[in-house]
């Protein structure tokens, strides 16, 4: 159902945002916006977000119901039992039993700067990136676009594996390693995601920003830089480190080649998301707010995984 696309990936520098989407960046513990809506969401202090996540994950939905297949899957949003489990609570209109009640509105003290940058990025997308991606998409077959995305994704194994280890996720680290080995050999240098399609080996992407959040680093203010997807200050620094850890960037340390390669990745990602982001602007009344919130939600989800 295409109603779906209403909140699909924000438009701002969509390709880079898509990079976020695929890297599944670490969901954050955001500092509360002091003017945020006072609703019934339970709030957790920033540094305790990971304990809250762990507590949340300890509560499992009742068994015996048909459920999503894998147990480690990101889609099993744990149910938080309402505090007073009586009839009053149930009839409370805003009780959303499947949502994690962690408030994830972003701290945005630099809003005026961010909105300027946001508008700039949007224009870059509208006048440069989207036309390029449309032409690209017209020429390239789907499987090649997917292949290129898989290839770039494969390169990021160093960062993902180290971050899995740093968070103590040994199973995830092992899976990343196995996926890399299988995809690089059977999957011809990572072009085909054989590990996922035939061996069912998948693990959520980890990055340094998520690792830092698990260690309790506060997320810092929301920040939008030109030509970049939305970030928080912590995640921006982490992203820089992750880029340095990407082997593709070591093998080709010549600056113009790097720009070309990363630019190619950006255009490819944008072309994969042309339909997804189509009409996002029509479906939102406040695009900046929508992007900011979607970013916050995706980070929160990625941290939980």
């Amino acid at each position: 159902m295409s109603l779906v696309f209403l909140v699909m990936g924000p438009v701002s520098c969509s390709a880079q945002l898509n990079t976020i989407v695929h890297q599944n960046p670490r969901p954050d513990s955001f500092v509360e916006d002091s003017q945020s809506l006072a609703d019934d969401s339970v709030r957790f202090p920033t540094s305790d977000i990971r304990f809250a996540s762990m507590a949340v994950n300890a509560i499992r939905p009742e068994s015996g119901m048909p459920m999503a297949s894998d147990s480690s899957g990101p889609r099993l949003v744990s149910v938080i039992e309402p505090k007073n489990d009586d009839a009053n609570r149930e009839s409370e209109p805003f009780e959303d039993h499947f949502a994690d009640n962690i408030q994830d509105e972003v701290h945005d003290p630099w809003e005026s700067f961010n909105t300027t940058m946001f508008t700039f990025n949007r224009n870059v997308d509208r006048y440069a990136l989207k036309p390029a991606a449309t032409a690209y998409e017209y020429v390239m077959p789907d499987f090649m676009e997917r292949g290129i995305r898989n290839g770039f994704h494969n390169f990021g194994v160093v960062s993902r594996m180290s971050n899995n280890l740093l968070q103590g996720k040994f199973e995830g680290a092992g899976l990343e390693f196995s996926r890399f080995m299988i995809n690089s050999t059977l999957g011809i240098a990572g072009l085909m995601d054989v590990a996922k399609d035939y061996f069912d080996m998948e693990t959520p992407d980890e990055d340094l920003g998520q690792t830092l959040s698990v260690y309790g680093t506060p997320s810092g203010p929301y920040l939008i830089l030109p030509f970049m997807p939305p970030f928080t200050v912590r995640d921006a620094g982490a992203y820089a480190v992750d880029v340095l850890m990407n082997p593709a960037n070591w093998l080709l340390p010549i600056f113009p080649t790097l720009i070309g390669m990363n630019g190619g990745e950006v255009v490819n990602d944008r072309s994969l998301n042309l339909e997804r982001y189509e009409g996002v602007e029509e479906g939102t009344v406040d695009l900046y707010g929508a992007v900011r919130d979607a970013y916050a939600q995706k980070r929160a989800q990625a941290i939980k995984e």
Partner: protein
Amino acid sequence: MTTISEWMAGIQANRNVQYRLQYSNGLRWFPVVLLGSLLGLFLSVTVAVAGENGSAKERVMGTVDQVMRILSDTQLKAPGHAQERRQLVKQSVNGLLDYEEMGKRTLGARWQKLTVAEQEEFVSVFRQFLSNSYESQFEAYSDEQVQYLGERRKSRFAEVLTVLVSNKGEIPLDFRLIWKSEQWWVYDMVVDGVSMVKNYRAQFTRIIRSSSFHGLLAKLKTKTELALTR
């Protein structure tokens, strides 16, 4: 030493004797009656529970299939039928979404501070806005499939987990439903981890802060008109 089969035959014989002893006095129908009534009770409960349980998935997948059929109908794809196509899709979707529950949650605590008239106005404006804003995405539809993955239930809330599969990739899509007026209604959709209700709540909060509740209504109306004139 008896063989195992002889041993088991012996036990069976014993059991038969005991059974006959126990029920020869007319009490023999009691377990049958008890079992019968328990079974009846169990069945009715199962049916009732299954009725509620199974129908969340059926509600969602039924509407999804209906919409997909409309969108892939070759007759309706012809240029003259665009309006008709849109109407049909709208009807299907309106039969599944509960705009009031959705609207309530997008306003959060502010909902209760509104007068009844304002609440009704908001729900109607919100409904118009949503109904008209996603049409361009429907036009972009091309052979996506929705695969059902599972569902969860908690009292009168349910969540149906699916994935939207296309040539470009897969997008997780979850529907959240509430049991209201003897039916399951969708009040939220979580696309790729982003909850629609939360996202709208963030947008509306920001707008209300800068231009009040009536400013929000005005903006929604403007957007709707834009969509209608497209």
